[in-house]
């Protein structure tokens, strides 16, 4: 007795040291910055792209992730313009905003014109080349009209651009946009009788911390508020990745507290109505606290940060980690006169330990998918469960007084009746039930609907969606991260490849598969194309200039000199010239250079309606690939969903073999029926509710297995003390369903799917768990 008391003391002290260490470590880590993250993309696996594709994706993500778009609307465009100016000015006050564009500067346009003028003979548009071949007289006539018109200053460039082609060439470099209009450098579009003026801002970085996110969005909303209050009737539309990230963080934060507080209140009510004393609550509270402290400390040590997503899931850990304590207090409450803490612990040790091991196995199985988010979730949950388990083993001996049960507690009454219902039912009923469920599963499973869309990871608030749709409509451009990556050995080859695929893209615009694109070869034609343009120009000048100049009265000497100048050899417009000039400012990031110096480029696509059609049309072009991160991630989700399903099947077989060494094969099969059927029935029910299933429903199946098998194992190991075990299982099923049920209320579809599957799965596993009565090892 003395020695065991000492052993108890030692374990209590070690536990205390562990918990204090975990608390200190956690406190140290969270006193720093950046320990809490919320960027959804950090949950996703690193893509297995080659370096160039990865660089291109990063470039596009950077572009889309930092961009904030605004439209300021008013009936009077003048008012809208003034409001846009004020908004731009106050946006710039926020240091997290890198730049704001509200007007296109005229000097910027002049600089671009200045850059291209020396190359004017090489950048003739397809329409101009066509006109030179078929309508030379028309070109001359327009030039003459330009010279004589009182409005034309055309004569000014008579010696260097005698047919005044440059302005049209320059205009043709840009993709046409029929939706957006210009007014005094402002871009605007009309909608519902109002004029909307466009403002674009860029943030410093696509991945802002939670604090920065809040600062940014609060500043922007205050700026919008003040613009609105100055002019009644002004409305402002806004969209951008930062707004989605902010909303996701806010809703996740809300969910962490809803789930945490909800679980705790449920727990409190449950314990107060079930037990006569508050002592179980003390044990449970200590085990939750120790579990959370250890979970946070381990997670922070392993990853260096905690993701908000982990905390949302982790909040549901409360409901799982109290199970061990429930088994202990239930054993106490039902124990006879000879019950001591040591004996109680011994009674439940095997069941609880097996339960911990299967749960940890289930959580670790989550890490098969290389999603950093899931790996963190698994580590967090496993550490938390171990913490709760150690608390029970080390601390429970402290209370030497007995627990007393509230005999009229609903939980107890229910457990009693439920158990006796099963005990009265004969084997025919049991096997009949198994048969009916088996038929339901065989018929129902093939009908489930699956949708692997990656967007389930991010909450999609309808108001943000509405504004985004309105902005895309106003802008006439919807860019969503789909692009073509073009690779080649040399820059010239690259530009030629772009030019050939652009023909395909133009036909895709015609068939409305895409609405437009942006490509570098618009701005820098390939040398081959420049030479074609140049030789057509020289030919045209030789044929038409002499007569044209004569009709104007240019003297012969000057005409000859001009012609000689216009036909002298061209100097190629190289991509490097363009990249270094101010003309490339907006688009130079479409050009990439690989590790060994090989060039690549991005063709940005707008308004992609049908990625599959696009991919099949582009497939014929060598070294051009369609990159669509969302589509690939969705594909990945599908792959992992299939892999998780296979892995679950394997896990069941392994568990079955493991159990068979203790229970024999036939009983092991029966022990596995409740969790397996529970998981499958849950999927079928959710599908029948009209929801589509995704990776997260299948990941939840792992938990249904891990927790559900605890129920049958506890019952099998109950040594005929079925009521105390059934009572404990009822309590733990209730708390688990409470916390995961709260997850199913989440605004993030992935979290909702996960929570709902566990909720229904655990309910089914609980209802089926009495199948294990009479299957214990000692009854053999």
């Amino acid at each position, binding site marked *: 007795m003395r020695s065991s008391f000492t052993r108890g003391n030692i374990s209590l002290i070690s536990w205390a040291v562990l918990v204090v260490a975990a608390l200190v470590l956690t406190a140290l880590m969270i006193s720093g910055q950046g320990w809490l993250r919320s960027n959804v993309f950090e949950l996703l696996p690193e893509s297995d792209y080659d370096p160039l594709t990865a660089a291109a994706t990063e470039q596009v993500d950077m572009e889309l992730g930092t961009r904030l778009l605004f439209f300021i609307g008013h009936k009077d465009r003048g008012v809208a313009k003034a409001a846009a100016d004020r908004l731009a000015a106050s946006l710039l006050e926020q240091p997290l905003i890198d730049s704001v564009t509200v007007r*296109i500067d*005229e*000097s910027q*346009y*002049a600089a671009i014109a200045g850059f291209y003028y020396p190359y004017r003979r090489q950048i003739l548009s397809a329409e101009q080349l066509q006109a030179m071949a078929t309508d030379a007289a028309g070109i001359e*006539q*327009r030039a*003459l*009209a330009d*010279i*004589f*018109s*009182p*409005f*034309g*200053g055309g*004569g*000014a*460039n*008579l*010696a260097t651009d005698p047919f005044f082609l440059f302005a049209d060439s320059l205009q043709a470099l840009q993709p046409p946009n029929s939706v*957006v*209009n*210009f*007014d*005094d*450098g402002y871009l605007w579009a009309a909608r519902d009788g109002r004029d909307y003026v466009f403002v674009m801002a860029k943030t410093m970085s696509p991945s802002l911390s939670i604090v920065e996110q809040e600062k940014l969005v609060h500043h922007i909303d205050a700026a919008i508020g003040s613009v609105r209050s100055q002019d009644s009737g002004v409305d402002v539309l806004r969209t951008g990745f930062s707004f989605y990230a902010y909303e996701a963080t806010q809703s996740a934060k809300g969910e962490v507290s809803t789930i945490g507080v909800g679980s705790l209140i449920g727990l409190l009510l449950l314990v107060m109505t079930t037990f006569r004393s508050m002592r179980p609550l003390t044990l449970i509270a200590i085990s939750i606290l120790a579990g959370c402290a250890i979970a946070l400390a381990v997670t922070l040590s392993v990853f260096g940060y905690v993701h908000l997503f982990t905390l949302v899931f982790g909040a549901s850990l409360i409901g799982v980690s109290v199970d061990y304590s429930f088994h202990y207090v239930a054993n106490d409450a039902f124990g006879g006169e000879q019950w001591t803490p040591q004996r109680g612990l011994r009674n439940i040790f095997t069941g609880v330990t097996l339960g911990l091991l299967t749960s940890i196995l289930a959580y670790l199985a989550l890490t098969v998918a290389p999603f950093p988010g899931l790996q963190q979730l698994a580590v967090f949950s496993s550490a938390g469960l171990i913490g709760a388990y150690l608390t029970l083993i080390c601390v429970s001996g402290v209370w030497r007084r007995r627990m007393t049960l509230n005999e009229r507690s609903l939980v107890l009454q229910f457990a009693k009746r439920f158990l006796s219902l099963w005990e009265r039912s004969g084997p025919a009923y049991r096997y009949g039930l198994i048969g009916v469920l088996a038929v339901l599963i065989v018929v129902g499973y093939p009908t489930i609907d699956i949708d692997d869309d990656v967007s389930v990871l991010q909450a999609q608030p309808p108001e943000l969606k509405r504004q985004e749709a309105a902005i895309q409509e106003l802008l006439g451009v919807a860019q969503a991260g789909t692009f073509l990556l073009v690779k080649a050995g040399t820059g010239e080859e690259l530009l030629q490849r772009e030019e050939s695929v652009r023909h395909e893209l133009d036909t895709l615009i015609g068939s409305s598969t895409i609405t437009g694109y942006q490509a570098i070869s618009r701005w820098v034609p390939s040398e081959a194309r420049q030479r074609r343009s140049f030789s057509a120009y020289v030919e045209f000048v030789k044929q038409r200039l002499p007569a044209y100049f004569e009709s*104007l*009265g*240019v*003297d012969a000497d*000057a005409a000859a000199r*001009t012609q000689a100048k216009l036909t002298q050899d061209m100097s190629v417009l190289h991509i490097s010239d363009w990249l270094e000039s101010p003309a490339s400012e907006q688009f130079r990031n479409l050009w990439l250079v690989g590790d060994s110096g090989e060039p690549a480029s991005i063709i940005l696509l707008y308004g992609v309606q049908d990625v599959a059609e696009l991919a099949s049309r582009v497939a014929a072009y060598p070294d051009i690939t369609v990159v669509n991160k969302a589509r690939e991630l969705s594909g990945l989700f599908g792959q992992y969903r299939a892999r998780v399903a296979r892995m679950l099947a394997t896990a069941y077989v392994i568990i079955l073999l493991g159990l068979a060494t203790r229970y024999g094969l036939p009983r092991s099969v029966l022990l596995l029926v409740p969790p397996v059927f529970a998981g499958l029935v849950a999927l079928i029910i959710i599908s029948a509710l009209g929801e589509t299933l995704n990776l997260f429903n299948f990941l939840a199946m792992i938990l249904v297995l891990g927790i559900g098998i605890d129920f049958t194992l506890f019952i099998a190991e109950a040594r005929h003390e079925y009521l105390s075990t059934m009572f404990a299982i009822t309590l733990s099923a209730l708390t688990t369903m409470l916390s995961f049920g709260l997850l199913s209320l989440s605004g993030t579809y992935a979290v909702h799917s996960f929570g709902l599957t566990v909720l229904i799965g655990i309910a089914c596993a609980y209802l089926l768990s009495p199948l294990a009565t009479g299957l214990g090892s000692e009854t053999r």
Partner: protein
Amino acid sequence: MRQAANTLLLCVLLFGLARGEPQAQLTLADVVARLGTPAVIRGNYTQTKEIALLSRPLESHGDFILSKLGLFWRQQSPPAGIVIADGKRLVQQIGDGDPEVTDDSSNPMALPFSRIFLGIFSGDEESLRTHFEITFSATGEAWEIGLVPTTEPMSLAIESIILYGREHIEDLTVVNRSSDKTVIRFSDIRTEPEHLTEHEIELYAR
């Protein structure tokens, strides 16, 4: 872009000459104030363009109407052509060809000029001053306004504009940065009938 600038200038001038009869001590304010008064003005013109490359100046002539519908400018020779300009668009027709319309929105650089144009339509001297440095001199019957553009892109193309008149405005000279020079001489100015005739309204419809 220069087209639009010159459109505006013509409008300024032609509105100015509607009120003829300059007083002895004419001020800039007197002239500018007249610009805002709507009226229909008709007349003929002869344009002379000096371009560096040409051994002799290019000469052309035609007639015009200025009204609230905008400017109708018809060149009779050589070559024949019509230009119609209002605040929003520019219609250009060469010979018997199809009219070509340049919309504000399709030509971003035309817009600054439209803004100035509209400012001047309302006879606003302030608006003129934000885009030009203005000099004014008057000697008896004769007056001269010099405009030097101070804002881009007009200042990139045009060095100065000189308007000269006595009883009416008589000529307009635009000196380009490239030292080319355009002189437009007006004649036979009429303000009667007070309103556009049906025939004239039809001319605008293109």
